[in-house]
């Protein structure tokens, strides 16, 4: 099982501008849920609070109001039930790829031969079985992000949270990574919540897209594309994709004035 719910989540923070205190409301009564095995995309213009929402779901930031529940149980702070993939991978530069994956597992309490074995298996899952000894600076951006995904998946979280995971990659690498994520999802059945600003990515990967505006849900849109989505290339050319993408574009731009 693995569902995650944001219930009435608010976030305000203080900002000092020219000596005057300002209260910024980043999120206002934000509610949505991701059910077991589902992929949900959070999309919206920059500053709409999508990353803040994800960080609160992870527990890296505390909500000012409302709560986050995983499988119906309210969670406070970070936990092994959620695995985080950061925008810029954020691998520890002094560790090898394998050791980076092992780090997360060690924090979960895994020791001994099982530790290395498990880390190796997840590196293989992202196609890096032969690059375990490399350090992050010896890996390309796409490879670094794969290690980041392996690190998060290895702890076997109920939910995978991804903050613009492919946003920093070039277009070609991004497409490869999207296909791999679909593949990983098909194999592991993980619940995934990811933030993106890329319409194509949201439509291709997600079952539902949460469109945010000014810290609140503007619209939640179903993506009527079949699963499994093996062939992303064919999907891109399909009428269903084009039509959904257009609807999403209109939803986002309807809010943007």
């Amino acid at each position, binding site marked *: 099982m693995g569902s995650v719910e944001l219930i009435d989540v608010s976030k305000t923070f203080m900002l000092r501008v020219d000596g005057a205190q300002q209260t910024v409301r980043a999120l206002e009564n934000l509610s949505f849920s991701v059910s077991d095995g589902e992929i949900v995309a959070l999309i919206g213009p920059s500053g709409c609070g999508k990353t803040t929402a994800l960080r609160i779901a*992870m*527990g*890296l930031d505390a909500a000012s109001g409302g709560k986050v529940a995983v499988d119906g149980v309210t969670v406070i702070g*970070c*936990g*092994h039930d959620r695995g*985080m993939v*950061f925008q*810029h991978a*954020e691998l*520890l*530069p*002094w560790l090898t790829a394998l050791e980076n994956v092992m*780090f*997360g597992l060690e*924090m*979960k309490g895994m020791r001994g031969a099982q530790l290395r074995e498990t880390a190796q298996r997840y590196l293989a899952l992202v196609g890096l079985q032969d690059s375990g000894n490399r*350090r*992050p*600076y*010896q890996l390309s951006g796409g490879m670094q992000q794969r290690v980041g995904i392996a*690190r998060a998946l290895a*702890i076997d979280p109920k939910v995978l949270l991804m903050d613009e995971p492919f946003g920093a990659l070039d277009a070609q690498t991004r497409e490869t990574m999207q296909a791999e994520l679909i593949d990983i999802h098909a194999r592991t059945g993980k619940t995934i919540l990811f933030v993106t600003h890329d319409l194509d990515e949201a439509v291709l990967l997600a079952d539902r897209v949460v469109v945010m505006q000014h810290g609140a849900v503007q619209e939640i849109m179903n993506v009527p594309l079949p699963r499994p989505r093996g062939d992303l290339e064919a999907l891109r050319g399909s009428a269903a994709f084009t039509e959904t993408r257009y609807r999403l574009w209109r939803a986002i731009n309807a809010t943007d004035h």
Partner: protein
Amino acid sequence: MPRWAITLISLAVLIGAWEFFGRDINPVFGSYPSAIAVAFVELVRTGQLGAALYESLRPFVVGYGLAIMVGVPLGLIIGRFRVVEAALGIYVTAGYAMPLVALVPLLILWLGLGFAVKASVVFLMSLFPICINTWLGVTAVPKSLIEVGRAFVAPDSVILRRIVLPATLPYIMAGIRLAVGRAVVAMVIAEFFTTISGLGAIIINSANNFDTATMFVPIVVLMVLAIGLNGLIGWVEHRVAPWQAEIAGRDE
């Protein structure tokens, strides 16, 4: 041209010029490389230099070593915990500017004239640059790396040891390097103001005898020692933090 060649040429020009112009100076007021070399050979032959070096290096190694062992953890804790920073930060900042020479008489009253006071002077002089640099390094650790620790539910002690410490290593090594120079100065100061001993004694005694060439020998030896230690620290840094050279640095 390789780097070592440029350094070598620079050295040859400097020594050559010193030799050329130094010969015209009254030997009481100055000296020149070949005279210093002769004095060096003499000091080595009589065993004075070796004995003095050993005598000087003992408090140096103990004081400097203790400064690393205390300064690094102290800097890590001050940098990581706001309460500790608020409570102890001012003393470290003040301690860095402390006129230690003025305090030597007091240290003598506490610790006597021997080994302990010399090691303490070296310790106090090198502690602060190491501690301050470590502290500075901790505050410069990218927040995102700390968040990796938090996201995987690492306890504070693990974040400190496995994320903050390695991320701070370049700063720590810079502090340890800066401290070499101060530790060498502290060592000589200690030898001047407590029991006159070691390399400091050679400097004072030969200066009192107007034997300027001999006086220069320990000075040169100390400078060479500092260069050697710096190189050693650089080598260690490359060994413990090989990633650093890859992600930062100049174009060659």
